[in-house]
């Protein structure tokens, strides 16, 4: 849960946030590559969820299991929501939404890691 893959999810989220931030500044609406990037981000979180649940089932450690699974299952839905939003919102606000979600996802990963560590 704290391996290179989790770190990669954080990096991808931040790259998307930066990307959307640039679009926001240059007043460019969200284009297809950025939309696809959000689906990629969602896919990465699906993988993280599967990996996390498998890891959880393989350990006897004391951790808040319901919370852990809840975070893992809900998190892929957020980039999917942002993708759907930016597809339908061609205004600058669409880039703003993608920016916010790109920043939220790394925070979620950190929170998931805290739950994993039993904090």
């Amino acid at each position, binding site marked *: 849960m704290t391996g290179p893959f989790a770190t990669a999810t954080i990096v991808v989220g931040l790259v998307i946030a930066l990307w959307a931030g640039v679009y926001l500044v240059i007043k460019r609406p969200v284009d297809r590559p950025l939309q696809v990037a959000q689906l990629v981000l969602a896919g990465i979180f699906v993988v993280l969820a599967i990996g996390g649940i498998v890891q959880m089932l393989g350990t006897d450690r004391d951790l808040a299991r319901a919370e852990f699974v809840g975070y893992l299952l809900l998190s892929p839905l957020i980039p999917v929501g942002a993708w759907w939003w930016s597809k339908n919102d061609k205004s600058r*606000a669409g880039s703003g*939404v993608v920016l916010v979600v790109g920043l939220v996802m790394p925070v979620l990963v950190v929170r998931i890691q805290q739950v994993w560590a039993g904090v």
Partner: protein
Amino acid sequence: MSESKAAATNQGFGRVLVVIYAIFAIGATSRSVIQIVSRFEEAPIAYSLSAFAAVVYIVATVALGRGNKTSRKVAYVAVGIEMAGVLIVGAISLLFPEAFPRATVWSDFGRGYLFIPLVLPPVALWWLRKTE
């Protein structure tokens, strides 16, 4: 009952605000449901407060997202409660830490959430004023 575009709370920056509120609403709701179902007896006041905060976020999200006259009033009330909540609970949690043995979204002025709970209500109030 005219709804001019300029007066809507759900246009432009307002949409970003709605998304941030929505994420907080989902996060706070799911967290408090788990807390209450799995270990309510550990900290009944803190967990009840988390649930209350979650409801406030849901109301604020919907009210900001609807963007009409009535929803604007509802949004003012919800954001006002949120502002009072984060200030009062933040102050109490610092002065009397034993009152909240478990963290709530508003504890320590929302430090566990990067102080976003503290920043969000003034921004929302500013936005409501601006779009009036």
